[in-house]
């Protein structure tokens, strides 16, 4: 345990309050009627901030070797690549499609 105890434990409660506050802000930004692009950008930025806090402090990535950090970042790079690959497909669709078959909602009793 000597190696694991080598770093000082972060203030976990402070991280908890930050995460709770960011969650409240996330919910708050969807209701005032901001433009969709603004809401989307804010929500993604808030989610990334929360995920970074969890990874750095709860998962102790901040105290690990840099190489392990690269291992952890690999999925992010692959995910970004995936989005870039899918973008041309979405642009190729002339107009968005709508479902022709819908399921009826059950009648209320």
């Amino acid at each position: 345990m000597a190696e694991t105890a080598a770093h000082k434990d972060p203030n976990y409660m402070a991280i908890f309050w930050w995460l709770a506050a960011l969650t409240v802000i996330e919910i708050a930004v969807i209701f005032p009627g901001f433009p969709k692009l603004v809401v989307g950008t804010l929500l993604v930025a808030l989610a990334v901030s929360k995920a970074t806090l969890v990874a750095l402090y709860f998962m102790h990535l901040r105290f690990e070797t840099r190489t392990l950090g690269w291992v952890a970042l690999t999925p992010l790079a692959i995910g970004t690549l995936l989005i870039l690959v899918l973008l041309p497909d979405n642009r190729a669709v002339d107009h968005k499609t709508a479902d022709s078959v819908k399921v009826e909602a059950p009648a209320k009793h």
Partner: protein
Amino acid sequence: MAEAALTHAAVEPAESPLTPESWGKLGMWIFLAGDAVGFGTLLGAYGAVRASSADWPNPYDRLGIALTALMTFLLICSSVTMVKALEAIKRGDRPAVKRFLLMTIAGGLLFLGMQAYEWTHLITSGLKVFGNPWGASLFGTTFFLITGFHGLHVTGGVIYLSVVLAAVSRIHDARYNYMIAEIAGLYWHFVDLVWIMVFTFVYLL
């Protein structure tokens, strides 16, 4: 030959591992990286399907944001109890270790209960895996697939933490207990991290 191997090891030490305290930790990180690609693919596909649909419902009009915000808060709380269990192992406070691990497991079970309630409510409202009364049918498919996949991870995490709790209760080696709890904690925090993304992309955006 054994002597030669020992001499060799002394002359040329093994390569320094990325996680010096345990190979298991590196193994868990590699597993989580792979799992993250799985979730990333699901969320990427969700984005692509949604972007090409003209009648995708507004998720926060149809899905219960208040309940899922509470579920998010619950997972964050369970992440805190998990790190508190690790702190307790360092202090040698065994009753606190068990208490915090139990609280983490309870958090996971509560989360699953809330998800079951949410699913039941949505299914009785007409949302199906292959159908959706409010627009694009893939809304239901992607919703159940992504939240279900995450729910399976939470279920796995609850079972995993229960095994760790049993081991920690039985074994009195603080170093070993710290190692297995830290590795299980990595998995649990990952489940929390993924939910943060699912909450944003599936429920709020």
